[in-house]
């Protein structure tokens, strides 16, 4: 199984997008820093939107998680699942004594490992850039927090934030894999994946509008069935532990949502991928 994982990892790594993304992380970070430097002019120290050396890694992740990380995940998974299967390239692997279930998990693991590498490099680059581009502050104000936190606390918060961001990417990836195994072409997989992201982004807006117009007053927590909403504000809400978040068990709710996505879509994708006949 390790040999299969290495083989999958190598093929994923040899894709241009994988190493191009990795080497472009410093550039993405630098551009994000430039944006936040301008942003700081409008938000004084003490505002959660004010960027400091300590909170920059989190701010940089908030800025790029929904678009950049999701799109990179979508493209990598489309190459790994849809293109290899539909072009017949995967036949080369399937002819070699491995079962399709083993191939499925090796692909999943190779993707998850590569994304973990991206997250680690992104975190390190953002941590360095934070101290290069922004002033340090002993106290940080965080979104949905009712009190300032210390720089020491910020280290744990940042790691937790990246952990949850990674979990959210695993969530969107499980949907992309399911899309990837049913799509007849890479173009269709990318199109459907982007469609899913747009629907995810649109859902909270429609939900809020619906609530406002009808006056039904449905709970705000339902917005977080959208994975991009978890990525946009859910992680910060979850980590804040504020009274409001505690009231509706935000952390548990969002973890359950993520687990639900992963379980449902991974199981469906595996079922389709491992069907007995492969006319490729």
């Amino acid at each position: 199984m390790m040999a299969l994982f290495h083989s999958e990892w190598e093929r994923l790594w040899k894709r241009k997008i994988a190493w191009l993304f990795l080497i472009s992380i410093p550039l993405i970070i630098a551009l994000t820093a430039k944006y936040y430097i301008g942003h700081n002019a409008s938000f004084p120290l003490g505002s959660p939107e004010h960027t400091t050396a300590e909170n920059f890694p989190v701010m940089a992740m908030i800025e790029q998680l929904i678009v950049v990380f999701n799109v990179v995940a979508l493209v990598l998974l489309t190459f790994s699942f849809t293109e290899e299967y539909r072009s017949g390239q995967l036949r080369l692997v399937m002819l070699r004594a491995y079962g399709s279930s083993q191939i499925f998990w090796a692909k999943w693991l190779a993707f998850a490992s590569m994304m973990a590498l991206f997250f680690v490099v992104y975190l390190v680059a953002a941590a360095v850039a934070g101290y290069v581009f922004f002033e340090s502050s002993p106290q940080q104000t965080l979104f949905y927090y009712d009190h300032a936190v210390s720089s020491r606390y910020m280290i744990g918060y940042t790691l937790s934030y990246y952990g949850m961001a990674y979990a959210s990417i695993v969530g969107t990836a499980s949907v992309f894999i399911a899309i990837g195994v049913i799509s007849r072409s890479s173009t269709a997989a990318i199109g459907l994946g982007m469609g899913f992201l747009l629907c995810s982004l649109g859902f909270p807006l429609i939900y809020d509008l619906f609530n406002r117009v009808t006056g039904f007053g449905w709970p705000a927590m339902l917005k977080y069935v959208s994975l991009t909403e978890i990525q946009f504000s859910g992680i910060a809400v979850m980590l804040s532990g504020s009274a409001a978040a505690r009231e509706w068990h935000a952390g548990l709710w969002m973890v359950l949502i993520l687990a639900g996505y992963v379980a449902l879509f991974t199981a469906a994708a595996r079922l389709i991928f491992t069907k007995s006949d492969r006319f490729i």
Partner: protein
Amino acid sequence: MKVLEIEHVTKKAGRRTLVSDMTFEIMQGDVCGFVGPNGAGKTTLIRMITGLVRPGEGTIRIEGFDVQRDRMKALGQVGAIVESPIFFPYMSGRDNLLNLAKLHAGIPKEKRAARVDEVLATVGLDGRGHDKVKTYSLGMKQRLGIAQALLGNPKLIILDEPANGLDPMGIRELRNLILKLNQAYGITFFVSSHLLDELQRICNRFVIIKEGRLVWQGTQEAWLEMAGTSSLEDHFVEMMTT
């Protein structure tokens, strides 16, 4: 010794029967031609032999191992090109083989590169191994296909329409390669092709199918005797049209 055993294999897709009650054997050292008109079920049977498709009924054994029940051991004995030789185009020929060599438990890590260079030399691609596959001609891809099939020292190599799209030079190279591997290494070949004249030059046995059913199997001598002509192609056309 039997290398490949097909026993009462049937495959249906919905109401359509793709392969029906097929039974035959291939012995070690054979170069067996697998012939039949388009849509006869050749590729479906090859997919079942290589584990891509599950037989509805019947058993397929390679070197005595059931492909369905003992997949690792059965397919560990096989190298194959099913339909066209497709590779990972963004990698060089050598990198493709190195990547696939990882999947052969019988090739230790420290010997992978040497094994890859060896099979590249065997198929005459040692000078182009570092070039991207997308720059290869079809003939080179066919040879690379055979190289990947050779990686795990297989007892049986299955080639599905290997001469498709090849020019006469490419066909000759392929023929010489098959004969070399058969004679020098004792590798058994199961070759599906429409080019009967070509198969006649390399095969000692034939399996003929039509509409998913076995029509005839036997040695080339027996077929020539039955045909009463030196051209198997003429007799094959006659068999398929009557």
